[in-house]
Protein backbone atom coordinates (compact mmCIF):
# COMPACT_ATOMS: atom_id res chain seq x y z
CA UNK A 1 0.00 0.00 0.00
CA UNK A 2 1.16 3.52 -0.69
CA UNK A 3 1.74 5.45 2.49
CA UNK A 4 1.94 9.21 2.79
CA UNK A 5 4.97 10.74 4.48
CA UNK A 6 4.18 13.74 6.65
CA UNK A 7 7.75 15.04 6.36
CA UNK A 8 7.75 18.82 5.81
CA UNK A 9 4.28 18.62 4.22
CA UNK A 10 2.60 21.04 6.63
CA UNK A 11 3.51 24.04 8.74
CA UNK A 12 2.32 26.04 11.70
CA UNK A 13 1.64 29.49 10.29
CA UNK A 14 -0.16 31.19 13.14
CA UNK A 15 -0.01 31.11 16.93
CA UNK A 16 -2.25 32.70 19.53
CA UNK A 17 -2.35 32.83 23.29
CA UNK A 18 -4.51 34.70 25.78
CA UNK A 19 -3.05 36.18 28.93
CA UNK A 20 -1.94 33.53 31.41
CA UNK A 21 -3.56 34.08 34.80
CA UNK A 22 -5.79 33.00 37.62
CA UNK A 23 -9.44 33.56 38.43
CA UNK A 24 -10.44 34.76 34.96
CA UNK A 25 -14.10 35.67 34.54
CA UNK A 26 -14.33 34.63 30.86
CA UNK A 27 -15.60 31.15 29.96
CA UNK A 28 -13.30 28.49 28.53
CA UNK A 29 -15.24 28.97 25.29
CA UNK A 30 -14.50 32.70 25.20
CA UNK A 31 -10.84 32.16 26.02
CA UNK A 32 -10.59 29.53 23.29
CA UNK A 33 -12.18 31.84 20.74
CA UNK A 34 -9.78 34.63 21.72
CA UNK A 35 -6.72 32.41 21.24
CA UNK A 36 -7.99 31.04 17.91
CA UNK A 37 -8.76 34.56 16.64
CA UNK A 38 -5.24 35.68 17.61
CA UNK A 39 -3.72 32.69 15.80
CA UNK A 40 -5.73 33.43 12.64
CA UNK A 41 -4.78 37.12 12.74
CA UNK A 42 -1.15 36.14 13.25
CA UNK A 43 -1.35 33.95 10.13
CA UNK A 44 -3.34 36.46 8.09
CA UNK A 45 -6.13 33.94 7.54
CA UNK A 46 -9.88 34.54 7.75
CA UNK A 47 -12.08 32.68 10.22
CA UNK A 48 -14.21 31.44 7.35
CA UNK A 49 -11.20 29.63 5.83
CA UNK A 50 -10.89 27.24 8.79
CA UNK A 51 -12.30 23.79 7.95
CA UNK A 52 -10.56 21.63 10.54
CA UNK A 53 -10.49 21.70 14.36
CA UNK A 54 -8.52 19.57 16.79
CA UNK A 55 -8.52 19.74 20.57
CA UNK A 56 -8.23 17.51 23.63
CA UNK A 57 -10.90 15.07 24.78
CA UNK A 58 -10.86 16.95 28.10
CA UNK A 59 -11.83 20.17 26.30
CA UNK A 60 -15.21 21.33 27.63
CA UNK A 61 -16.11 23.86 24.92
CA UNK A 62 -17.47 21.93 21.94
CA UNK A 63 -16.71 22.30 18.23
CA UNK A 64 -20.18 23.65 17.44
CA UNK A 65 -19.81 26.35 20.06
CA UNK A 66 -16.47 27.44 18.67
CA UNK A 67 -17.41 27.40 14.98
CA UNK A 68 -20.63 29.27 15.68
CA UNK A 69 -19.11 31.86 17.98
CA UNK A 70 -16.19 32.68 15.68
CA UNK A 71 -17.85 32.19 12.28
CA UNK A 72 -15.41 29.50 11.23
CA UNK A 73 -16.07 27.70 7.95
CA UNK A 74 -17.90 24.39 7.52
CA UNK A 75 -15.73 21.68 9.03
CA UNK A 76 -14.52 18.70 7.02
CA UNK A 77 -12.23 17.36 9.75
CA UNK A 78 -12.49 17.39 13.54
CA UNK A 79 -11.14 15.16 16.26
CA UNK A 80 -9.96 15.04 19.87
CA UNK A 81 -6.86 13.56 21.47
CA UNK A 82 -6.97 11.50 24.69
CA UNK A 83 -5.02 11.45 27.96
CA UNK A 84 -4.90 15.03 29.17
CA UNK A 85 -1.44 16.52 28.70
CA UNK A 86 -0.39 13.42 26.75
CA UNK A 87 -2.57 14.67 23.92
CA UNK A 88 -0.84 18.02 23.37
CA UNK A 89 1.55 17.26 20.53
CA UNK A 90 -0.93 14.84 18.99
CA UNK A 91 -3.32 17.72 18.22
CA UNK A 92 -0.73 19.08 15.81
CA UNK A 93 -0.18 15.57 14.40
CA UNK A 94 -3.88 15.09 13.72
CA UNK A 95 -4.01 18.48 12.01
CA UNK A 96 -0.96 17.67 9.88
CA UNK A 97 -2.42 14.29 8.85
CA UNK A 98 -5.75 15.89 7.95
CA UNK A 99 -4.05 18.40 5.68
CA UNK A 100 -1.61 15.92 4.11
CA UNK A 101 -4.44 13.49 3.32
CA UNK A 102 -6.72 16.15 1.88
CA UNK A 103 -9.31 16.10 4.62
CA UNK A 104 -9.00 19.81 5.34
CA UNK A 105 -6.93 22.86 4.29
CA UNK A 106 -6.77 25.15 7.30
CA UNK A 107 -6.77 23.35 10.63
CA UNK A 108 -6.72 24.91 14.08
CA UNK A 109 -5.38 23.00 17.08
CA UNK A 110 -6.28 24.56 20.40
CA UNK A 111 -6.73 24.13 24.15
CA UNK A 112 -8.59 26.33 26.60
CA UNK A 113 -8.63 25.59 30.28
CA UNK A 114 -9.53 27.21 33.56
CA UNK A 115 -7.57 25.35 36.15
CA UNK A 116 -6.66 28.00 38.72
CA UNK A 117 -9.34 27.15 41.30
CA UNK A 118 -8.65 24.34 43.81
CA UNK A 119 -12.01 22.76 42.99
CA UNK A 120 -10.90 22.29 39.38
CA UNK A 121 -8.15 19.86 40.39
CA UNK A 122 -9.07 16.65 38.65
CA UNK A 123 -8.00 14.45 41.59
CA UNK A 124 -10.42 16.30 43.90
CA UNK A 125 -13.26 15.05 41.71
CA UNK A 126 -12.59 11.34 42.36
CA UNK A 127 -15.82 9.48 43.06
CA UNK A 128 -16.35 7.72 46.42
CA UNK A 129 -16.54 4.30 44.71
CA UNK A 130 -13.92 3.58 42.06
CA UNK A 131 -13.89 0.85 39.46
CA UNK A 132 -11.35 1.84 36.80
CA UNK A 133 -8.12 -0.19 36.91
CA UNK A 134 -5.88 2.77 37.74
CA UNK A 135 -8.17 4.26 40.37
CA UNK A 136 -9.16 1.00 42.09
CA UNK A 137 -5.58 -0.07 42.76
CA UNK A 138 -4.25 3.31 43.92
CA UNK A 139 -6.81 5.75 45.31
CA UNK A 140 -8.20 3.72 48.28
CA UNK A 141 -4.75 4.01 49.89
CA UNK A 142 -4.39 7.73 49.20
CA UNK A 143 -2.11 7.20 46.18
CA UNK A 144 -4.31 9.75 44.53
CA UNK A 145 -2.77 12.94 43.19
CA UNK A 146 -0.62 12.99 40.06
CA UNK A 147 2.13 14.39 42.32
CA UNK A 148 1.93 11.18 44.40
CA UNK A 149 2.34 9.00 41.32
CA UNK A 150 5.32 10.97 40.04
CA UNK A 151 6.89 11.14 43.52
CA UNK A 152 6.69 7.35 43.74
CA UNK A 153 8.36 6.93 40.34
CA UNK A 154 11.04 9.53 41.09
CA UNK A 155 11.92 7.98 44.48
CA UNK A 156 12.56 4.72 42.63
CA UNK A 157 14.58 6.61 40.01
CA UNK A 158 16.68 8.20 42.78
CA UNK A 159 17.30 4.73 44.24
CA UNK A 160 18.39 3.22 40.93
CA UNK A 161 20.41 6.08 39.46
CA UNK A 162 21.73 8.17 42.38
CA UNK A 163 19.59 11.15 41.43
CA UNK A 164 18.77 13.73 44.10
CA UNK A 165 16.50 16.70 44.66
CA UNK A 166 19.44 18.86 43.52
CA UNK A 167 18.81 17.55 40.01
CA UNK A 168 15.17 18.56 40.18
CA UNK A 169 16.34 21.97 41.41
CA UNK A 170 18.46 22.24 38.25
CA UNK A 171 15.29 21.80 36.20
CA UNK A 172 13.02 24.09 38.22
CA UNK A 173 15.54 26.94 38.44
CA UNK A 174 16.45 26.70 34.73
CA UNK A 175 12.82 27.01 33.67
CA UNK A 176 12.24 29.81 36.16
CA UNK A 177 15.18 31.73 34.73
CA UNK A 178 13.59 31.39 31.28
CA UNK A 179 10.25 32.61 32.66
CA UNK A 180 11.99 35.62 34.20
CA UNK A 181 12.83 36.70 30.61
CA UNK A 182 9.27 36.11 29.34
CA UNK A 183 6.83 38.92 30.24
CA UNK A 184 3.85 36.65 29.42
CA UNK A 185 4.92 34.01 31.97
CA UNK A 186 3.03 33.78 35.26
CA UNK A 187 6.38 33.71 37.09
CA UNK A 188 7.99 36.53 35.06
CA UNK A 189 8.69 38.76 38.05
CA UNK A 190 9.39 36.00 40.56
CA UNK A 191 13.02 34.88 40.52
CA UNK A 192 13.81 31.60 42.29
CA UNK A 193 17.12 30.64 43.86
CA UNK A 194 18.33 27.13 44.63
CA UNK A 195 17.68 27.89 48.31
CA UNK A 196 14.11 28.94 47.51
CA UNK A 197 13.67 25.57 45.83
CA UNK A 198 15.25 23.53 48.63
CA UNK A 199 13.22 25.32 51.31
CA UNK A 200 9.87 25.05 49.54
CA UNK A 201 7.12 23.06 51.21
CA UNK A 202 6.82 19.42 50.25
CA UNK A 203 3.78 18.25 48.30
CA UNK A 204 4.55 14.57 47.89
CA UNK A 205 8.02 13.93 49.30
CA UNK A 206 10.45 13.86 47.45
CA UNK A 207 8.56 16.44 45.31
CA UNK A 208 8.14 20.01 46.55
CA UNK A 209 5.88 22.83 45.42
CA UNK A 210 8.31 23.92 42.68
CA UNK A 211 8.38 20.44 41.12
CA UNK A 212 4.68 20.84 40.34
CA UNK A 213 3.23 22.84 37.46
CA UNK A 214 1.31 26.07 37.84
CA UNK A 215 -2.47 26.17 37.96
CA UNK A 216 -3.54 28.54 35.22
CA UNK A 217 -6.48 29.97 33.30
CA UNK A 218 -5.65 30.54 29.62
CA UNK A 219 -6.09 29.33 26.06
CA UNK A 220 -3.65 28.76 23.22
CA UNK A 221 -4.07 27.90 19.55
CA UNK A 222 -2.05 27.23 16.41
CA UNK A 223 -3.06 27.20 12.73
CA UNK A 224 -1.69 24.69 10.23
CA UNK A 225 -1.79 24.71 6.44
CA UNK A 226 0.08 22.86 3.70
CA UNK A 227 3.75 23.71 3.10
CA UNK A 228 2.80 25.20 -0.31
CA UNK A 229 0.21 27.50 1.19
CA UNK A 230 2.54 28.42 4.06
CA UNK A 231 5.03 30.05 1.67
CA UNK A 232 2.44 32.68 0.69
CA UNK A 233 1.49 33.68 4.24
CA UNK A 234 2.97 36.45 6.33
CA UNK A 235 4.83 34.49 9.04
CA UNK A 236 7.98 32.44 8.68
CA UNK A 237 6.58 28.87 8.53
CA UNK A 238 7.45 26.35 11.24
CA UNK A 239 7.44 23.15 9.19
CA UNK A 240 6.33 19.89 10.80
CA UNK A 241 9.34 17.77 9.91
CA UNK A 242 8.31 14.62 11.77
CA UNK A 243 5.52 13.75 14.17
CA UNK A 244 4.62 10.64 16.13
CA UNK A 245 2.35 9.24 18.81
CA UNK A 246 2.90 6.24 21.05
CA UNK A 247 2.45 4.48 24.34
CA UNK A 248 3.96 1.31 25.73
CA UNK A 249 1.61 -1.65 26.00
CA UNK A 250 -0.20 -1.94 29.31
CA UNK A 251 0.91 1.45 30.61
CA UNK A 252 -1.40 3.25 32.96
CA UNK A 253 -1.76 7.03 33.01
CA UNK A 254 0.74 8.39 35.53
CA UNK A 255 0.17 5.65 38.15
CA UNK A 256 2.16 3.26 35.99
CA UNK A 257 2.99 0.70 38.67
CA UNK A 258 1.52 -2.40 37.03
CA UNK A 259 3.88 -2.96 34.09
CA UNK A 260 7.10 -4.95 34.35
CA UNK A 261 9.28 -1.81 34.36
CA UNK A 262 7.43 1.36 35.40
CA UNK A 263 10.56 3.44 34.72
CA UNK A 264 10.60 2.42 31.07
CA UNK A 265 9.05 5.66 29.79
CA UNK A 266 5.69 5.32 28.09
CA UNK A 267 7.15 7.61 25.41
CA UNK A 268 9.56 4.97 24.06
CA UNK A 269 7.44 3.78 21.11
CA UNK A 270 6.70 7.41 20.23
CA UNK A 271 10.44 8.12 20.21
CA UNK A 272 11.14 5.15 17.94
CA UNK A 273 8.48 6.23 15.48
CA UNK A 274 9.61 9.87 15.56
CA UNK A 275 13.30 9.22 14.89
CA UNK A 276 12.47 6.66 12.20
CA UNK A 277 10.61 9.42 10.32
CA UNK A 278 13.04 12.24 10.99
CA UNK A 279 16.18 13.27 9.10
CA UNK A 280 17.08 15.44 12.08
CA UNK A 281 18.38 13.29 14.95
CA UNK A 282 18.47 13.82 18.71
CA UNK A 283 22.09 14.98 18.58
CA UNK A 284 21.11 17.65 16.02
CA UNK A 285 18.32 19.21 18.09
CA UNK A 286 19.02 22.85 19.01
CA UNK A 287 16.25 23.49 21.53
CA UNK A 288 13.51 21.41 23.15
CA UNK A 289 10.08 21.98 24.66
CA UNK A 290 9.16 19.11 26.98
CA UNK A 291 5.95 18.60 28.92
CA UNK A 292 6.64 19.30 32.58
CA UNK A 293 3.57 18.95 34.75
CA UNK A 294 6.21 17.63 37.17
CA UNK A 295 9.96 18.20 36.99
CA UNK A 296 10.94 14.47 36.91
CA UNK A 297 9.13 14.12 33.57
CA UNK A 298 12.04 16.02 32.01
CA UNK A 299 14.41 13.24 33.10
CA UNK A 300 12.15 10.56 31.62
CA UNK A 301 11.77 12.47 28.33
CA UNK A 302 15.52 13.12 27.98
CA UNK A 303 16.11 9.38 28.24
CA UNK A 304 13.10 8.17 26.22
CA UNK A 305 13.97 10.38 23.25
CA UNK A 306 17.66 9.52 23.37
CA UNK A 307 19.09 12.90 24.38
CA UNK A 308 21.09 10.86 26.88
CA UNK A 309 21.33 7.23 27.98
CA UNK A 310 19.14 5.45 30.54
CA UNK A 311 19.97 6.70 34.03
CA UNK A 312 22.02 9.62 32.70
CA UNK A 313 19.37 12.35 32.66
CA UNK A 314 20.01 13.66 36.16
CA UNK A 315 23.65 14.34 35.29
CA UNK A 316 22.50 15.85 31.97
CA UNK A 317 20.75 18.66 33.93
CA UNK A 318 24.06 19.80 35.45
CA UNK A 319 26.40 22.59 34.29
CA UNK A 320 23.59 24.72 32.87
CA UNK A 321 23.06 22.21 30.05
CA UNK A 322 19.30 22.73 29.89
CA UNK A 323 19.37 26.50 30.29
CA UNK A 324 19.67 29.16 27.60
CA UNK A 325 23.27 29.01 26.35
CA UNK A 326 23.60 25.34 27.37
CA UNK A 327 23.91 22.17 25.36
CA UNK A 328 20.13 21.67 25.01
CA UNK A 329 18.02 24.55 26.31
CA UNK A 330 14.65 23.18 27.44
CA UNK A 331 11.35 25.03 27.98
CA UNK A 332 12.63 28.42 26.93
CA UNK A 333 9.31 30.11 27.74
CA UNK A 334 9.35 28.78 31.31
CA UNK A 335 7.37 25.57 30.72
CA UNK A 336 4.49 24.26 32.78
CA UNK A 337 6.52 24.94 35.91
CA UNK A 338 6.96 28.67 35.37
CA UNK A 339 5.17 30.00 32.23
CA UNK A 340 1.69 28.49 32.42
CA UNK A 341 0.07 25.07 32.58
CA UNK A 342 -2.49 24.55 29.83
CA UNK A 343 -1.93 20.82 29.41
CA UNK A 344 1.36 21.42 27.60
CA UNK A 345 0.06 23.56 24.74
CA UNK A 346 2.46 26.39 25.59
CA UNK A 347 5.31 24.07 24.51
CA UNK A 348 3.85 24.11 21.00
CA UNK A 349 3.63 27.90 20.78
CA UNK A 350 7.11 28.32 22.27
CA UNK A 351 8.53 25.87 19.74
CA UNK A 352 7.12 27.98 16.91
CA UNK A 353 8.60 31.15 18.45
CA UNK A 354 12.05 29.53 18.48
CA UNK A 355 11.74 28.65 14.79
CA UNK A 356 10.62 32.20 14.00
CA UNK A 357 13.42 33.68 16.10
CA UNK A 358 11.02 35.54 18.39
CA UNK A 359 11.39 33.71 21.71
CA UNK A 360 12.23 35.81 24.76
CA UNK A 361 14.98 33.23 25.35
CA UNK A 362 15.97 32.81 21.72
CA UNK A 363 18.48 30.08 20.96
CA UNK A 364 21.02 31.17 18.33
CA UNK A 365 20.48 29.44 15.01
CA UNK A 366 17.45 27.50 16.23
CA UNK A 367 16.66 25.97 12.85
CA UNK A 368 14.92 23.06 14.57
CA UNK A 369 12.99 22.49 17.78
CA UNK A 370 11.84 19.30 19.52
CA UNK A 371 8.39 19.36 21.18
CA UNK A 372 6.85 16.57 23.26
CA UNK A 373 3.80 15.91 25.41
CA UNK A 374 3.69 14.08 28.75
CA UNK A 375 5.67 10.84 28.83
CA UNK A 376 3.47 9.52 31.64
CA UNK A 377 0.48 9.04 29.34
CA UNK A 378 -0.26 8.01 25.79
CA UNK A 379 1.84 10.71 24.20
CA UNK A 380 3.10 12.49 21.10
CA UNK A 381 6.12 14.44 19.90
CA UNK A 382 7.19 16.41 16.85
CA UNK A 383 10.10 18.20 15.30
CA UNK A 384 9.72 21.69 13.90
CA UNK A 385 12.19 23.12 11.40
CA UNK A 386 12.74 26.32 9.50
Amino acid at each position, binding site marked *: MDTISLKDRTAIVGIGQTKFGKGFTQSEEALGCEAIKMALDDAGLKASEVNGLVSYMMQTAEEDEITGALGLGDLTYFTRTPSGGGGAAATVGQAAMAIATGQADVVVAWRSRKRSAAASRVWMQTQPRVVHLREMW*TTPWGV*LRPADHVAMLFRRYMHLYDATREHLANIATAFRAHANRNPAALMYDKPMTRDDYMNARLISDPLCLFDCCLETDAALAVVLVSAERAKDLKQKPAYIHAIAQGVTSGSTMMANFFVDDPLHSQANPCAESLWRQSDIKAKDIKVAQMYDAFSPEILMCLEAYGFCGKGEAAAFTENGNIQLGGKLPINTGGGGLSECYIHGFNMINEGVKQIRGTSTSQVDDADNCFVCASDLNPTGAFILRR
Partner: protein
Amino acid sequence: MPVGPILPATDDPDSAGFWAATREGKFVVQKCGGCGELRFPPRPFCKYCQSNDFSWHPVSGRGRIWSFAIAHKPVYPALADFAPFPIVIVELEEKPTLRISGNVLAAPGAAINSVDPAKLRIGQPVHVTFQQVAEDVVLPQWLLTPPPGAA
Protein backbone atom coordinates in the same frame (compact mmCIF):
# COMPACT_ATOMS: atom_id res chain seq x y z
CA MET B 1 -11.54 3.70 61.64
CA PRO B 2 -12.07 4.38 57.94
CA VAL B 3 -8.95 5.11 55.90
CA GLY B 4 -10.96 7.44 53.72
CA PRO B 5 -14.03 7.75 51.61
CA ILE B 6 -12.53 6.50 48.35
CA LEU B 7 -13.43 2.84 48.19
CA PRO B 8 -13.17 0.19 45.50
CA ALA B 9 -16.38 -1.07 43.97
CA THR B 10 -16.42 -4.65 45.25
CA ASP B 11 -18.96 -5.91 42.70
CA ASP B 12 -16.88 -5.32 39.57
CA PRO B 13 -16.82 -8.74 37.86
CA ASP B 14 -13.07 -8.68 37.16
CA SER B 15 -12.02 -7.92 40.73
CA ALA B 16 -14.90 -9.05 43.00
CA GLY B 17 -13.02 -12.27 43.80
CA PHE B 18 -10.10 -10.32 45.22
CA TRP B 19 -12.33 -8.33 47.56
CA ALA B 20 -14.24 -11.46 48.59
CA ALA B 21 -10.89 -12.99 49.59
CA THR B 22 -9.71 -9.98 51.62
CA ARG B 23 -12.99 -10.13 53.56
CA GLU B 24 -11.85 -13.60 54.63
CA GLY B 25 -8.35 -12.37 55.46
CA LYS B 26 -6.73 -13.83 52.36
CA PHE B 27 -4.49 -12.20 49.74
CA VAL B 28 -5.07 -13.71 46.30
CA VAL B 29 -3.90 -12.97 42.77
CA GLN B 30 -5.12 -14.44 39.50
CA LYS B 31 -3.47 -17.56 38.13
CA CYS B 32 -3.99 -18.06 34.41
CA GLY B 33 -5.77 -21.29 33.50
CA GLY B 34 -4.00 -21.27 30.13
CA CYS B 35 -0.32 -20.75 30.95
CA GLY B 36 -0.17 -20.66 34.74
CA GLU B 37 1.25 -17.11 34.98
CA LEU B 38 0.28 -15.07 38.04
CA ARG B 39 -1.21 -11.65 37.41
CA PHE B 40 -2.25 -8.61 39.42
CA PRO B 41 -4.17 -6.26 39.44
CA PRO B 42 -7.06 -8.44 38.27
CA ARG B 43 -7.64 -8.36 34.52
CA PRO B 44 -10.15 -10.22 32.36
CA PHE B 45 -7.52 -11.76 30.07
CA CYS B 46 -3.95 -13.07 30.33
CA LYS B 47 -1.48 -10.82 28.51
CA TYR B 48 0.87 -13.77 27.90
CA CYS B 49 -1.53 -16.31 26.33
CA GLN B 50 -4.81 -14.36 25.89
CA SER B 51 -6.76 -16.91 27.93
CA ASN B 52 -9.71 -15.71 29.99
CA ASP B 53 -9.64 -18.81 32.19
CA PHE B 54 -8.21 -18.19 35.66
CA SER B 55 -8.40 -19.14 39.32
CA TRP B 56 -7.79 -17.10 42.47
CA HIS B 57 -4.42 -18.14 43.85
CA PRO B 58 -3.44 -17.48 47.50
CA VAL B 59 -0.04 -15.81 47.93
CA SER B 60 2.13 -15.43 51.01
CA GLY B 61 1.32 -11.80 51.74
CA ARG B 62 5.04 -11.06 51.90
CA GLY B 63 6.71 -8.43 49.76
CA ARG B 64 9.11 -5.51 49.63
CA ILE B 65 8.70 -1.75 49.38
CA TRP B 66 9.23 -0.96 45.67
CA SER B 67 8.94 2.77 46.29
CA PHE B 68 7.25 5.22 48.62
CA ALA B 69 6.28 8.87 48.92
CA ILE B 70 5.01 11.03 51.75
CA ALA B 71 1.80 12.86 50.97
CA HIS B 72 1.65 16.37 52.41
CA LYS B 73 -1.36 18.72 52.25
CA PRO B 74 -3.38 19.49 50.23
CA VAL B 75 -4.70 15.92 50.11
CA TYR B 76 -8.16 14.44 49.64
CA PRO B 77 -10.32 16.01 52.39
CA ALA B 78 -11.07 12.76 54.23
CA LEU B 79 -7.34 12.10 54.56
CA ALA B 80 -6.37 15.62 55.67
CA ASP B 81 -6.25 14.74 59.38
CA PHE B 82 -3.60 12.10 58.67
CA ALA B 83 -1.26 14.21 56.50
CA PRO B 84 1.63 13.94 56.15
CA PHE B 85 1.29 10.17 55.67
CA PRO B 86 3.44 7.68 53.77
CA ILE B 87 2.14 5.82 50.72
CA VAL B 88 3.91 2.80 49.30
CA ILE B 89 4.00 0.50 46.32
CA VAL B 90 4.73 -3.08 47.40
CA GLU B 91 6.17 -5.76 45.11
CA LEU B 92 4.96 -9.27 45.92
CA GLU B 93 7.40 -11.98 46.93
CA GLU B 94 6.02 -14.55 44.49
CA LYS B 95 6.61 -12.31 41.46
CA PRO B 96 8.18 -8.87 42.08
CA THR B 97 6.68 -7.33 38.92
CA LEU B 98 3.28 -7.73 40.61
CA ARG B 99 2.74 -4.58 42.65
CA ILE B 100 0.01 -3.08 44.80
CA SER B 101 -0.50 0.31 46.44
CA GLY B 102 -0.74 0.50 50.20
CA ASN B 103 0.05 2.13 53.49
CA VAL B 104 2.51 0.91 56.10
CA LEU B 105 0.93 0.66 59.55
CA ALA B 106 2.69 0.51 62.94
CA ALA B 107 0.37 -2.30 64.05
CA PRO B 108 -2.74 -4.04 62.72
CA GLY B 109 -5.59 -1.52 62.62
CA ALA B 110 -3.33 1.50 63.24
CA ALA B 111 -3.72 4.79 61.37
CA ILE B 112 -2.08 5.43 57.98
CA ASN B 113 0.28 7.95 59.61
CA SER B 114 1.33 5.63 62.45
CA VAL B 115 4.78 4.80 61.07
CA ASP B 116 7.62 7.32 61.07
CA PRO B 117 8.36 7.90 57.35
CA ALA B 118 12.08 8.09 58.20
CA LYS B 119 11.93 4.34 58.88
CA LEU B 120 10.94 3.50 55.31
CA ARG B 121 13.46 2.28 52.74
CA ILE B 122 13.12 0.89 49.23
CA GLY B 123 13.58 -2.86 49.37
CA GLN B 124 12.40 -3.19 52.98
CA PRO B 125 10.47 -6.44 53.68
CA VAL B 126 6.79 -6.03 54.59
CA HIS B 127 3.92 -8.39 55.26
CA VAL B 128 0.21 -8.00 54.81
CA THR B 129 -2.40 -7.09 57.38
CA PHE B 130 -6.07 -6.48 56.69
CA GLN B 131 -8.04 -3.40 57.55
CA GLN B 132 -11.83 -3.20 57.31
CA VAL B 133 -12.85 0.23 56.02
CA ALA B 134 -16.48 -0.39 54.99
CA GLU B 135 -19.00 -3.19 55.39
CA ASP B 136 -17.89 -4.78 52.12
CA VAL B 137 -14.32 -3.44 51.89
CA VAL B 138 -11.27 -4.93 53.59
CA LEU B 139 -8.05 -3.33 52.33
CA PRO B 140 -4.72 -5.12 52.38
CA GLN B 141 -2.24 -2.98 54.32
CA TRP B 142 1.37 -3.56 55.30
CA LEU B 143 3.51 -4.02 58.41
CA LEU B 144 7.29 -3.75 58.45
CA THR B 145 8.79 -7.25 58.74
CA PRO B 146 11.43 -7.35 61.49
CA PRO B 147 14.83 -8.63 60.38
CA PRO B 148 15.37 -12.37 61.06
CA GLY B 149 16.40 -12.97 64.67
CA ALA B 150 14.87 -9.71 65.93
CA ALA B 151 12.69 -10.04 69.00
